[in-house]
């Protein structure tokens, strides 16, 4: 099992959801986060006081997947979240040790 974490631009969420559904991935956890990599922030001005805002809003998607689905999912996210501009985001793949479905108690592959 693998855990996939993707940080993407907020307006790309719908596209990524659809793309994941198309490859058979159901279910995800979405968080609103702030961050930056190489993308520069912007300046805001309030009555002459200038602030550089470099923590930019992003969306983090977390997916628990069976090993067989990982490549398809990574591919789907990478294609649908891309704009070609700096700040598109990143995908991280972790090894997932255990998964439990709370309602039924199922574990492992059945629970993912």
């Amino acid at each position: 099992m693998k855990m996939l974490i993707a940080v993407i631009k907020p307006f790309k969420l719908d596209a990524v959801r659809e793309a994941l559904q198309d490859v058979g991935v159901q279910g995800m956890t979405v968080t609103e986060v702030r961050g930056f990599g190489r993308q520069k922030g912007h300046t805001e001005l309030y009555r002459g006081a200038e602030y550089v805002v470099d923590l930019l809003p992003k969306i983090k998607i977390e997916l628990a997947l069976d090993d067989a689905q990982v490549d398809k999912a990574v591919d789907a996210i990478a294609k649908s979240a891309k704009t070609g501009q700096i700040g598109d985001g990143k995908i991280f793949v972790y090894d997932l040790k255990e998964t439990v479905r709370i309602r039924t108690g199922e574990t492992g592959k059945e629970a993912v």
Partner: protein
Amino acid sequence: MRTIVLALLALLPAAATAQDLNSGDTAWMITATALVLFMTLPGLALFYGGLVRTKNVLSVLAQCFAITCLVSVLWVLYLYSFAFAEGGPWIGGAGKLFMASVAEAAVSGTIPETVFAMFQLTFAIITPALVVGAFAERMKFSAMLLFTALWVTVVYAPVCHWVWASDGWLFKKGLLDFAGGTVVHTTCGIAALVCAVRLKSRNGFPTTAMPPHNMTMTVTGAGMLWVGWFGFNAGSALAANGNAGMAMLVTHVSAAAGALAWMAMEWFKYGKPSVLGIVTGIIAGLATITPASGYVGPGGALVIGLLAGILCFIATSFMKRVLKVDDSLDVFPVHGVGGMLGTLLAGVFASAALGGFSGQGYAKGMDMRTQLGVQLTGILAVAVYTAIGTAVLLKLTDLIAGLRVSGEAETAGLDQTQHNERGYDL
């Protein structure tokens, strides 16, 4: 006993009886009073609330509401008397303590004295509430309450008496201050400056970003302030007449001109017009026209508003970027500078000899030169007295209650540490 009775009789509004009561004037003044209170609750509260960080939004609202309640009680107890009872050139007398002598039938001019007293109370409320902007996000609630009580007693009431009581020394000199360029804006502006310097900057200022947490709240408050200001200025006519009408017109013109001027300055200097700039320009225009509102015409108001937008903008930038004084919500550059500027300009645009920019004319025996002299005297006297008074009272407050919250409390936020509450639970 006889002396007391005679003294009390002497304090009754001379020759004003129930027959002088004008229901039109009274109806308007009751309305104006409500409008001015609305400026503080919730106008100013929202305006300031949106400008601070999320963790301090309640503290600002609490300060505005608490000040309203505190000053209201003190007004009844003794402030009204010190401000408006017959006394001397420097302070009112004891004739209206506890407002005991203000009967239901008592008349002041053409309106009930109760209405006059209430109207004036709303001014006494908003003035210390404005000062909140200078020490926002770092002053102890207890210290703020103590300081406010002392300040309205030692600074506001006397200055109010000097300018608006018929035996006040500036009133007698013929100072033109229709609705509070000196009494409200100069006092609160100077006090704000002194407080900001004395309390020192917020932790992290000016390098840490401290943008407004809720601009929509601020803009909502600004709208309430504009509308309420009609009560503030047009109500200062104390009657429902042409004077009030003109005051409303010039107030409106100045607000609009101030906003456009600030917007233009910002657009030119920083590249984009901001909403905060627009509403701050509005407030600058409103503050600046305040002392002049009963004396000038629409042409003069246009110039006053434009100058307000330009000069208050420059003052704000100067305070923030050059002096780096943390007058957190820019009370001095907007209200202080605006109030002083407007008081001076009242002396210019009151003239009936300026063609399209004419005002209502000078009082008998005055001309522009002599009037400007009086205006300058008033501004300086009020500014200097306020500065000294505020500094002394801050020192006293510090000795009794301290002034500033601890660094840790400041970081955690005043809502949590001073009030055990959260502004939002989203």
